[in-house]
């Protein structure tokens, strides 16, 4: 959390300048799980060998993680070599210029809100901020329909994906903070999304807290399928 971007972070970001690498990284991220070399090559429209080369570069840079696993049910002789699979690395890459350390400030502020027991005040502020952002987005489209929730959440880094009628969120934009202050930060996040929906002219009740491992704890239900 030092202010100055590390060589490692700058190298990782530089790596993504290459469009093939960016496409491969994007495909692995969007899959939400593990991707084989063949799958990644196909998605990026490049040869398998080239995909493998770039995927391994992304692993080296700490953007992806690789595991070996046997695909299919066959065991023993004839089952073939285990496949190399890629998934997004857990760590976070960041570089802000000039140096800014908002995360340090966020942790201090969260600690203070927690100490002060100001959960409800934070939730109200988050609801207001979300609603304001939602109204602004809706106003940008003029007389036309407000932008779809899925696109708004994607633009804010939530990485939404469809799960039946529900919209689930693969990424928690506040992951480091919510790991340390789950009650405070997950509630704040829910209120932000409730506010966004409200500002977009949608029912805020569609956003509910449904925690599960490895995703944001908020789910947005379709308006026809509420609890």
């Amino acid at each position, binding site marked *: 959390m030092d202010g100055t971007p590390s060589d490692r972070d700058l190298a990782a970001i530089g790596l993504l300048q290459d469009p093939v690498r960016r496409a491969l990284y994007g495909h692995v991220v969007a899959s939400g799980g593990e991707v084989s070399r063949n799958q990644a090559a196909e998605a990026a429209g490049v040869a398998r060998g080239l995909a493998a080369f770039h995927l391994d570069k992304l692993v080296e840079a700490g953007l992806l993680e690789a595991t070996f696993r046997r695909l299919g049910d066959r065991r023993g002789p004839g089952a073939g070599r285990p496949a190399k699979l890629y998934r997004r690395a857990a760590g976070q890459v960041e570089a802000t210029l000039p140096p800014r350390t908002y995360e340090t400030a966020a942790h201090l502020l969260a600690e203070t809100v927690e100490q002060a027991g100001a959960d409800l005040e934070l939730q109200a502020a988050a609801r207001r901020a979300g609603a304001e952002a939602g109204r602004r987005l809706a106003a940008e489209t003029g007389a036309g329909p407000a932008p779809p929730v899925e696109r708004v959440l994607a633009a804010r880094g939530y990485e939404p994906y469809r799960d039946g009628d529900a919209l689930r969120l693969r990424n928690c934009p506040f992951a480091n903070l919510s790991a340390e202050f789950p009650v405070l930060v997950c509630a704040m996040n829910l209120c932000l999304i409730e506010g966004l929906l409200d500002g977009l002219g949608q029912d805020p009740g569609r956003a509910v807290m*449904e925690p599960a491992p490895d995703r944001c704890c908020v789910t947005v239900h379709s308006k026809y399928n509420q609890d």
Partner: protein
Amino acid sequence: MAAQHLAQVNIATLRAPLDGPELAGFVAELEPVNALADASPGFVWRLQTEDGDATAIRPYGDDRIMVNLSVWESFEALRAFVYATRHLEVMRHRRRWFSRMADPYLALWWVPAGTVPTVAEAKRRLELLARHGPGPDAFTFRAPFLRSVTR
């Protein structure tokens, strides 16, 4: 080293009487969330009276302070229940129901598997945490001590 389980205590100060309208939302969640705990992986034991929960127990001689005491197989099992189930959804309303406490309101410590702590012991762990900060004998989610120190 004998197997160890994780004990947790937390206390909470009611903002209003438990049977009043202010606490109705909390009371409504007691049974489903306790059932969820009982069925959670790694759950071992929780303090309860014949009502099925611990809300009748007021260990501080102050009618507003309630206690919650439980034992889990591991730190991870307890953490998963507290922060990655419906329990989290209930906790986000905590300030509607409970006042902020200046002293530590939650303590964790290791107990020999097969034993359960008393309320008096739990109170002692909270005092330890208040006096010395997190250590192997009383710690928190944010400052865990993942293995008991053997002597």
